[in-house]
């Protein structure tokens, strides 16, 4: 059973190689990609059940003892987030297959997509600091090519910013890893955590802060988020959807993992809380100013990252469980919103609000899907966003963090406001009289994929109770990592 842990990483990467060999047949590549992502998803669900019943599942690569070799660990947190990520990856893949555009059918799209999947799996499962860096790089190097697919002028411009910023963040990450290795002589996260306890607290805080900055750029927290709303909107829709759903959340996961395991705070972390509040407010204000659907949604990615950070900053079981539940709901919701945006773009050929309008009558299904996902993003009951935000607010109130809880509620209202702006601009009102605006019916596969992902968010709202129990289990495992350490041979 233990060796299953490597498969969600190895299967997509091996699939990418096979897929490259099959470059003559895009159809074959599509089959390979779908099958491998689906199998990885099934295996991850098995791992999640195993971790939930019997504690973390670990495998040490190459048979080296824990503190020397690289260990892959699937605990409840990693398996839960990986499962929901793979589900989202699968839905976006189906969407991309349905999209009738030449550049998505290019022979390099599917191999890159599989490399990205393998990288995401590796980030979630690794328990080694340097391996975390390598996993993030695997994921990012695929994303660099995906974001500039097509090589248009706007894409090259924003792709440049994206690559430079991420390369800088990676450099900072390796610097942090090197300094941590110099201070502790280990890279195994559980091992490092143990050795950091005997070091000078000032040194430990400095290391923790450097790591937080490096991962904070990748997670797009305030004030390190500026690259995201510039870079994401220019990429092809399917690529933006998978990035929006996953990449920043992978950064958040890495922050949660490293900050709880290696740099735990005794009580509420005021610094993180301020960053969380500012991330929420600045993100949502940025969104309100925009006029393009993709750009509005991109700013909301930033805003929602603040909520996750808010949960983490409480450093209590309630706070971290709420953050985990919130991440679980955000991954599919964010991707679903971008997929719906893709449906609108496919139909009209644009996502600029002043050139849209009257879609409610033309495409009631698209409108309904957008409505559900948008309400979920704003956190209106009975959607999945409500469950996540309720848990966060309750955790905030019980920790007596009044200000940040108030801010989070205010930001929800502003989120609803900007969702209303999209609704009023794109779905209500008159049809534009512009001759350039088209009315193409998107293929059924695309609608099906977007609908499936919205259905997942509804399922999260319905299955909130078991998911909440899983999140609490994950949070308890983070705050008391005895079991996590035990499987790593410590």
């Amino acid at each position, binding site marked *: 059973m233990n060796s299953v842990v490597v498969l969600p990483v190895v299967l997509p990467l091996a699939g990418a190689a096979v897929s490259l060999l099959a470059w003559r047949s895009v159809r074959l590549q599509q089959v390979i990609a779908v099958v491998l992502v689906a199998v990885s998803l099934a295996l991850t669900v098995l791992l999640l059940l195993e971790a939930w019943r019997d504690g973390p599942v670990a495998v040490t690569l190459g048979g080296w003892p824990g503190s020397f070799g690289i260990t892959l660990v699937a605990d409840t947190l990693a398996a839960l987030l990986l499962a929901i990520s793979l589900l989202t990856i699968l839905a976006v893949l189906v969407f991309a297959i349905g999209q009738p555009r030449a550049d998505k059918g290019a022979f390099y799209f599917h191999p890159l997509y599989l490399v990205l999947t393998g990288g995401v799996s590796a980030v979630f499962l690794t328990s080694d600091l340097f391996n975390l860096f390598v996993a993030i790089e695997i994921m990012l190097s695929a994303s660099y090519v995906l974001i500039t697919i097509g090589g248009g002028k706007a894409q090259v411009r924003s792709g440049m910013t994206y690559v430079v910023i991420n390369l800088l963040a990676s450099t900072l990450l*390796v610097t942090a890893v*090197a300094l941590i290795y110099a201070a502790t002589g280990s890279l195994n996260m559980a091992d490092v955590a143990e050795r950091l306890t005997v070091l000078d607290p000032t040194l430990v805080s400095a290391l923790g802060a450097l790591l937080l900055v490096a991962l904070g750029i990748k997670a797009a927290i305030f004030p390190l988020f500026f690259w995201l709303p510039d870079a994401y909107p220019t990429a092809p829709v399917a690529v933006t959807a998978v990035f929006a759903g996953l990449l920043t959340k992978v950064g958040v996961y890495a922050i949660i993992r490293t900050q709880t395991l290696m740099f735990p705070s005794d009580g509420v972390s005021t610094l993180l809380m301020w960053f969380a509040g500012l991330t929420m407010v600045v993100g949502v204000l940025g969104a309100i100013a925009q006029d393009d659907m993709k750009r509005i949604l991109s700013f909301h990615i930033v805003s929602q990252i603040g909520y996750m950070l808010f949960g983490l900053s409480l450093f209590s079981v309630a706070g971290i469980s709420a953050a985990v539940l919130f991440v679980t709901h955000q991954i599919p919701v964010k991707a679903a919103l971008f997929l719906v945006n893709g449906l609108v773009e496919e139909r009209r050929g644009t996502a600029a609000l002043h050139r849209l309008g009257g879609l409610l009558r033309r495409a009631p299904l698209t409108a309904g899907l957008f409505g559900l996902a948008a309400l979920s993003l704003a956190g209106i009951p009975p959607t999945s966003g409500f469950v996540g935000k309720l848990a966060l607010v309750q955790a905030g109130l019980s920790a007596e963090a009044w200000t940040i809880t108030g801010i989070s509620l205010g930001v929800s209202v502003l989120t609803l406001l900007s969702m209303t702006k999209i609704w009023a601009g794109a779905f209500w009102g008159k049809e534009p009289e512009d001759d350039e605006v088209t009315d193409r019916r998107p293929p059924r596969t695309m609608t099906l994929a977007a609908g499936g992902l919205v259905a997942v968010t509804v399922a999260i709202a319905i299955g909130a109770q078991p998911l909440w129990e899983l999140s609490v289990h994950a949070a308890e495992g983070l705050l008391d990592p005895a079991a996590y350490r035990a499987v790593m041979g410590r």
Partner: protein
Amino acid sequence: MNLVLLIGVGVLFGTGTYLLLQRTLTRIVLGLALLGHGVNVLLLLAGGPAGSPPLIGETAATVPYADPLPQAMALTAIVITFGIMAFLLALAYRSWTLTHDDEVEDDVEDRRIARTRARDEDHIEPDALEADPEDHP
């Protein structure tokens, strides 16, 4: 010995950061390359002093073994930086063929929105804004 290397790391980081803050793409790429080299030297330093080769079966050593792990890490980091740097150069070349300019442009849409705001609030003549000096340095 270590101090010299440490100062070297500092110089690499400093010059790298300076170049990274420029607006020309080639300088940014060079800056990132220097930063990458700085980190690699830092990784090597993280392993402590030099020693005998860390080979299994090498028993005649009088000095302690050198730590092999940082070397492995530095190699991995070099390979990754090398690959991404190549991609970045290709991207810079593509950017040059498209725009015939080596400068990093602003976020176009953001500029447009900021301009609309300014027009709404200050009633500045649109013509005056077209000649925004920052757009055409």
